[in-house]
């Protein structure tokens, strides 16, 4: 044990030395990357995101990215990744974040899938004055309940998913009588459902709630819930399940004919659509938490990213991967803008931040605008579609795109209120 303590101290003193070399222009830029490397969220989000981070850093360092990202690394300086597992309590995560910043002396932290962790990290990032970019976590509370200088989120927040889902539901089932939901019994599931329910009440006032099932997170067994959903005789069933729970739900609901009985909306369905191509029938509504994966625009950047990613890891990138790369490109844009303003010299964090606020940049998922939360929160368009097998291959049809301003609240209005007031601008 003692030796381990020593190692810790040693690593710290090492860190001290490295910091002194900050001044040098092309010294590597240390990027702390925090995603789930263990636990249930590792498979669907954590590891794809880590892979995306690694391949993106590698391609950027090699200068192998299309315009406008052709410049090496960030403003010519190579990127050096420091990985941390997001697993464990928020206390652990706050501790590890501090270690990242003060022991590993990273220049910027990109990460966090769990909303709880994002909420906990934000104030700490302020305290430590460290540029921190959330790439995936969903809760709108971060910039609606707080205001931060050093914290950015380059992915749209979760409200968009539910509102988009409701809009699509209205488009395909304008006169639905009943809608139900099955969502995990924790913040993400509860928020997703209340946003969806709220939006539906606005969009299809006639529709009633059949049942709202809230199984325990990672319950795995949904027999009874599915019976309840079947019995409710709903036209629409909404679920924000992800990962194992989503897949288990599909596997169990399929044979029991839920997909035949009701139109099912899987807001994160994109992560499962290829894996479970055999089990997902046609006509299931799926989303990707934004214009990612199958919904990504057909542009240079997307081709570059998805082809490189697929070649390396033999699977197409899912939305978590897209969001990670998006964060890197966002920071890169801000960094280089600041560096240019700084006469080509390495910008201070403050300069990067002021450059970052309110910018818009291109990502494999399309246009990203940092237009909420005083320019710290991104908005994007979103898209939903219906599954359709074409010669055994899983695809989406009837894809509808909803522009950013229709699925995101305007600056200064909380998502919940915005929905309650009928999406008034």
């Amino acid at each position, binding site marked *: 044990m003692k030796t381990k303590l020593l190692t810790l101290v040693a690593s710290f003193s090492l860190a001290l030395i490295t910091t002194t070399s900050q001044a040098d222009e092309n010294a590597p830029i240390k990027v702390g990357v925090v995603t789930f490397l263990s*636990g249930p969220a590792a498979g669907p989000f954590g*590891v794809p995101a880590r892979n995306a981070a690694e391949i993106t850093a590698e391609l950027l360092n090699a200068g192998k990215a299309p315009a406008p990202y052709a410049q090496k690394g960030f403003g010519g300086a190579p990127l050096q990744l420091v990985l941390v597992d997001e697993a464990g309590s928020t206390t652990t995560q706050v501790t590890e974040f501090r270690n990242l910043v003060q022991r590993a002396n990273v220049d910027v932290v990109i990460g966090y899938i769990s909303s709880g962790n994002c909420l906990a990290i934000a104030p700490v990032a302020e305290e430590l004055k460290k540029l921190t970019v959330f790439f995936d976590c969903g809760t709108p509370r971060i910039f609606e309940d707080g205001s931060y200088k050093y914290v950015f989120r380059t992915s749209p927040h979760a409200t968009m998913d539910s509102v988009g889902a409701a809009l699509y539901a209205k488009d395909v089932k304008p006169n639905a009588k009943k809608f139900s939901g099955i969502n995990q019994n924790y913040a993400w599931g509860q928020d997703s459902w209340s946003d969806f329910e709220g939006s539906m009440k606005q969009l299809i006032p006639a529709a009633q709630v059949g049942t709202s099932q*809230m199984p*325990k997170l*990672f319950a795995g067994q949904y027999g*009874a819930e599915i019976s*309840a959903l*079947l019995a409710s005789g709903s036209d629409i069933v909404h679920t924000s399940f992800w990962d194992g729970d989503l897949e288990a739900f599909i596997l169990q609901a399929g044979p029991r004919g839920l997909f035949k009985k009701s139109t099912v909306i899987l807001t994160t369905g994109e992560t499962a659509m290829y894996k479970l191509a055999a089990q997902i029938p046609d006509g299931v509504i799926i989303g990707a938490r934004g214009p990612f994966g199958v919904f990504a625009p057909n542009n240079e950047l997307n081709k570059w990213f998805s082809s490189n990613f697929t070649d390396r890891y033999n699977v197409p990138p899912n939305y978590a991967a897209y969001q990670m790369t998006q964060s890197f490109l966002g920071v890169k844009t801000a960094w280089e803008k600041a560096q240019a303003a700084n006469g080509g010299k390495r910008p201070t964090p403050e300069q990067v931040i002021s450059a970052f606020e309110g910018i818009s940049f291109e990502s494999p998922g399309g246009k990203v605008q940092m237009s909420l939360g005083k320019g710290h929160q991104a908005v994007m368009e979103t898209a939903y579609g219906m599954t359709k097998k074409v010669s055994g291959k899983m695809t989406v049809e009837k894809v509808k795109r909803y522009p950013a301003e229709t699925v995101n609240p305007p600056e200064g209005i909380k998502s919940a209120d915005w929905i309650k007031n009928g999406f008034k601008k």
Partner: protein
Amino acid sequence: MDQLVAICIDGVIYSSWLFTSAIGLTLIYGVMKILNITHGSFYALGAYTAASVTGTLLARGMEPLLSYLVLLGSAAAVALIVAPFLERGLLRFMYVKDEVVIMLITYACFLMLEDAIKLIWGVDPYFVAEPYGLLDSFEIGSLTYPNYNLLLIGIAAMSGLGLVYVLNRTRVGRLLLAVIHDPEISRAMGVNVDRFYLVTFSFGAFLAAMAGAFTAPTLSVVPAMGVDIIVLSFAVVVIGGLGSLQGAAVGAVIVGLVRSVSIHLAPELELFVIYFVMALVLAVRPRGLFSIAEARKI
């Protein structure tokens, strides 16, 4: 009416799943007084092995109906390889220690096995959905149930009754009861207690692995799937009374039914059901419903 039927069916299905998942735990505790946290690891190992092996074989064009045997086989394989290694290699040296300390030892093993699983299978989910859909399905009112559920109920019943038979009707069973009652005296009387422990532990592990293996087709096999099953089966066996088979059965039925009632009538409460029942039962019967009486001390 329709709902009542649904409640019962769902309850029974879930109960049988719970029972299969928990019975191994209560068996090992009953015989060895070990509250075995690696139970969750064996559950996960069973699921992973079953999913990967069955998946590959089916891909190689194996007769689908054989997949059930493969599921069973993979569970057995897991138990035969990992369990003896754990019991002979580590646990048997620890029996002198405190119940709680042994429990922590299994906790440590659980942590390591978690990562071991990750190293072997990675973090991507595994699927083996075929066996679930294979057996057609039955209709009740407006509800459809795959017959696979009946298979699960059968497995639960068989493993339960099987154990009861072995314990009460066979010579081995009686010897085992003797070992349970007093390992020292049994040893003195020439019973090979060590072998009984080895076999019990391996069989308990097998039951856990089997639960995992036969659950695998109904879900996606992902990291940490063994974590929740631990507390869940703890709750079930504690409600029934640690170390008691009929207790585990009753516990499973109670939890299963209460849960399915709450899902159909008050979904909001589902989250607490198990712990409420557990706390309630313990408050009334400190050692669970079918507790085994303590021997007199003086």
